[in-house]
């Protein structure tokens, strides 16, 4: 874990990153609990165990940078600065949700922090990301665009189109692949040809790095380097982060397609305990860490309580924001 040494300049910054990971973890676990209790109406895709990836990457993004996410996007949104309470309300379908209850978990967006949306359709965020980057370049702005993609999704055609497009137009895009081993119930390596996604990316002339995605220091360092290159006009970059989906594809997934002991083995390398160990070895105290964990737990607990207490949206809002001309009242 030598990378962690170089990457985390100060322990204060490191603790802030640790806090983000803890927030994500708490958010995901509580979400799933609530789903199991029947208080959450829609599907919940947890990113438990993958927290280091968005945390390490978003540490290098600015508020005005754009982020395009996917179906497993809670962690991305939190790391980009979205308010977990508003996100939780959204997932509960309540007033005050990031999208007023119209979106839900798979469609969380918070434009005020540059989080341009989770997505229920695999790979579509990638093509949107290159277009946003083209707009940025047309407007002469100084923004970077980041998009997340799962390992399984790298077999969809638009993934490749977006890579080619980004490189042809030398766009300021960071593609971040969260390789959590699975796509739904399928091990991606069973339906993935060739030496790996990095080789595929390289064949478009795009520089890529592959890191242990459960090592926050490694993600942080690689993301910092790639993002600096993008900001200095180097065109698109690709970050491949190897991680593991500790929970099921959706929270109700019985995981009966896994080998015995598989989850447990991977629990041993989950990023939060690992980073805590590093923190303590590097000057933080056990108490600091526990306090951060407790604070995260309390914050999410409050978010759940607020969500539960929040009213459902006014039914009139179902009829608004479809389109200016020809909205649903036309036929009503």
């Amino acid at each position, binding site marked *: 874990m030598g990378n962690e040494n170089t990457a985390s300049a100060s322990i204060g910054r490191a603790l802030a990153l640790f806090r983000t990971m803890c927030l994500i973890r708490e958010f995901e676990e509580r979400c799933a609990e609530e789903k199991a209790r029947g208080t959450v*109406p*829609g*599907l919940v895709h947890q990113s438990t165990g993958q927290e280091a990836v968005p945390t390490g990457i978003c540490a290098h993004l600015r508020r005005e940078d754009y982020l395009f996410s996917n179906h497993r996007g809670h962690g991305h949104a939190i790391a980009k600065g979205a308010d977990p309470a508003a996100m939780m309300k*959204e997932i509960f*379908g*309540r007033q005050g*949700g990031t*999208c007023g*209850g*119209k*979106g*839900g978990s*798979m*469609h969380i967006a918070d434009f005020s922090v540059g989080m341009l949306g989770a*997505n*229920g*359709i*695999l790979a579509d965020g990638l093509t949107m990301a290159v277009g946003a980057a083209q707009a940025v370049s047309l407007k002469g702005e100084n923004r970077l665009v980041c998009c997340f993609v799962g390992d*399984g*999704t790298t*077999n*969809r*055609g638009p993934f490749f189109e977006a890579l080619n497009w980004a490189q042809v137009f030398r766009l300021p895009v960071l593609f971040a692949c969260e390789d959590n081993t699975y*796509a*739904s*119930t*399928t091990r991606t390596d*069973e*339906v*993935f040809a060739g030496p790996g996604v990095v080789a595929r990316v390289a064949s478009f002339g795009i520089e890529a790095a592959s890191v242990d995605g459960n090592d926050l220091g490694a993600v942080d360092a690689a993301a910092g380097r790639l993002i600096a290159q993008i900001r200095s006009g180097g065109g698109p970059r690709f970050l491949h982060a190897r991680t593991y989906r500790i929970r*099921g*594809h*959706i929270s*109700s*997934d*019985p995981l*009966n*397609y896994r080998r015995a002991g598989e989850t447990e083995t991977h629990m041993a390398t989950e990023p939060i305990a690992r980073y805590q160990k590093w923190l303590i070895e590097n000057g933080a105290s056990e108490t600091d860490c526990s306090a951060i964990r407790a604070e995260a737990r309390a914050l999410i607990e409050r978010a759940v309580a607020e969500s539960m207490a929040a009213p*459902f*949206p006014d*039914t009139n*809002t*179902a*009829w608004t924001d*479809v389109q200016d001309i*020809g*909205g*649903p009242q*036309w*036929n*009503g």
Partner: protein
Amino acid sequence: MERVSYAEAVRRGLAEEMRRDPLVWALGEDLSRAHGSTSSTQYCGLIDEFGPKRVVDTPISESTIMGAAVGAALAGTRPVAELRNVDFGLCAIDELVNQAAKIRYMFGGQARVPLVTRQGLGLKRSLGSQHTQSNEVWFVHTPGLVVVAPATPGDGRGLLKASIRCDDPVVFLEHKELWATEGDVDFSDDGIVPLGRARTVTSGTDLTLVVWSRMAIVAEHAATQLSALGVSAEVIDLRTLWPWDREAVFRSVRKTGRLLVAQESVLVGGFANEVAAEVSERLHNTLVAPVRRLGAPRIPMPYSPPLEDECRIECRHVVEAALSLVQNDRSRKETT
């Protein structure tokens, strides 16, 4: 007779066809493994009986799932291309519409494309805008396709079997809220339900209620409530949307003089218009009241339950519309 879920009935229907014909096979994402959601149980265990060459877990490549099915159909097999949702099916609609639907004709009848594509249709609580669409009319509007949308376990099994035996491409639409519903199915017989034939759900004399897919269940409840209110509704479940059973509908409307078409999908531009326009044109003199249509407002489906409920056509809407139709209620005046 056995009491089984819709998911189980279609699962067994597929297995029966795979046993009967070694050229039938299925492809799609995550077919072979059990999964938490009911939407995967319809392939459960098939891999054990038929192996990985006939129950194929594919990469996440929707275009190729459909394109490969077309190619495999041309090469003499009968693929069943699972797309999970019509929403994901949009990623493969080029291959379905530009290739599967046109090849037989375009190539002057040299080849047929006997594929079935299974796609989940419609609403399931709080799946949001991108997992709840109903676009059956798109397929009905596309020459070359057969379009099926069964409502009961027996029809699911029987129509899937008929679809697999059909020599032309069939879009087989399974409403996601139907998976868990149960019904009695007689597995001792072949159970084939012919394509293009409607099912009369309830007989009646006051009005005809034309429906399909999940709306058939809703309409059945509505008919019961209407009956308690002294209104006799004849519910016709089309089951096949193309070709739809015009004879059955016309026969019924000639008897009742009134027609209500109810659909879950957006009313504007929807399939209800097809039935309504045909009946209005051909049975103008028979109708004692204008044809009524019910459908969702033109709104992407919201997530939050009370908002979603604003956009759903439910039993009470059907009952209300039926009542206003038989009372020849003209409150909705001819002005706008």
